[in-house]
């Protein structure tokens, strides 16, 4: 099963059509586990399914002058059979305060940041070469030992790029072979 998130619009904070997707309006804390505002979408929390791949699209139109980092993120747990694992796979697209946009692929095991890689995506703005929107996806390989993160920014001038691929190899303590979705 493949989960899909489409047309996620930062400006309008539009609805979410996937299992777990979080929108981060503005958060300015360095302390972990503080309460913060959020918007979450969860289609059906009574049943949990498995998915091997997720997609997202983020647009930052109208998100000007951000005083704090802003972004859209797919955050989803691992799954082993019917068991939900403590691993959480996340693919944020972050708009930084300097208008740079980056992809922050990462995996948590419980509360421990286990793996992290950053890719450059481009700059937010209205110039031809600035970022229009970003497609991104992450998925398990056939052997269910690795998760690949892929970001594809599209620019205002109609060009696009494929950011460098980042691949997480499952570590000790992570028994996931799928993602959990509602």
């Amino acid at each position, binding site marked *: 099963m493949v989960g899909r998130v489409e047309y996620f619009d930062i400006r309008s904070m539009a609805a979410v059509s996937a299992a*777990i997707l979080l929108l981060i309006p503005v958060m300015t804390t360095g302390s972990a586990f503080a309460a913060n*505002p959020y918007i*979450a979408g969860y289609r059906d929390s009574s049943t949990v399914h498995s998915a091997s791949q997720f997609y997202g699209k983020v647009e930052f139109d109208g998100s000007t002058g951000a005083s704090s980092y802003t972004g859209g993120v797919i955050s989803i747990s691992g799954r082993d059979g019917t068991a*939900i694992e403590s691993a959480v796979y996340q693919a944020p697209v972050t708009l930084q305060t300097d208008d740079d946009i980056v992809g922050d692929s990462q995996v948590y095991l419980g509360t421990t940041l286990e*793996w992290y*890689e950053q890719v450059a995506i*481009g700059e937010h703005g209205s110039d*031809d*070469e600035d970022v229009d929107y970003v497609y991104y996806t992450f998925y398990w390989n056939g052997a269910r030992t690795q998760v690949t993160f892929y970001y594809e920014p599209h620019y205002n001038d109609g060009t696009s790029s*494929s950011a460098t691929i980042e691949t997480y190899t499952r570590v000790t303590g992570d028994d996931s072979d799928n993602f959990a979705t509602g």
Partner: protein
Amino acid sequence: MYWTVVTLATAMVVGILASFSLTPSLSQEQPAEIQSIEYVSGPDAFLERGGASAVIVQLSPDRIELGRGESATVTVNLSHRAATDEFSELHLVPSNNQGYLGLPSSDKLTTIEERAELARQGKPIPGMINNSDMISFATQEVSVAAGNDQSVQMTVTVPEDLPDEMVGKSIHIAPNFEIREMQKASPDDASRAVLFPDMLTVIVVN
């Protein structure tokens, strides 16, 4: 870069709940109490959350204009910030994984699934140009001691046969380096040093 760690409060992220001893049984999974997860963005957050070393890339210049067949040199500065003494020195080599340029006409030739998988395998993607074909480095290995900077020269060449549809448009390249120490590490130690890239924009003028 004051802001470092984004914290998310969520009732929905089931993965984190497992770490709080929720049931693993499918039939018993329920919407959970509001818990918090976080995500990390940037070197400060990474180092605060247990990372050992951050290599921060800065390009000078980071925007150039070139015609087809023309070249320019860009200085790639690599700054090694260390939170621990785990890596007194890091050895960086240009990666084979440098991303791709997508022509305006290329989007409909493949699906995102196909592009992601071809990119993962390092294979050609229809309608896309491998950035590795447009850049070269003056040296094939750079060593950067903790707390220090090193620079390497990168030459960018716009292909002579770049299609007309790219004239007046942009090429985006974020030079990527592999950290040799990470290649040797086991998966469990595979993210102790992380590269934070910068992006070069090339405007194709003719």
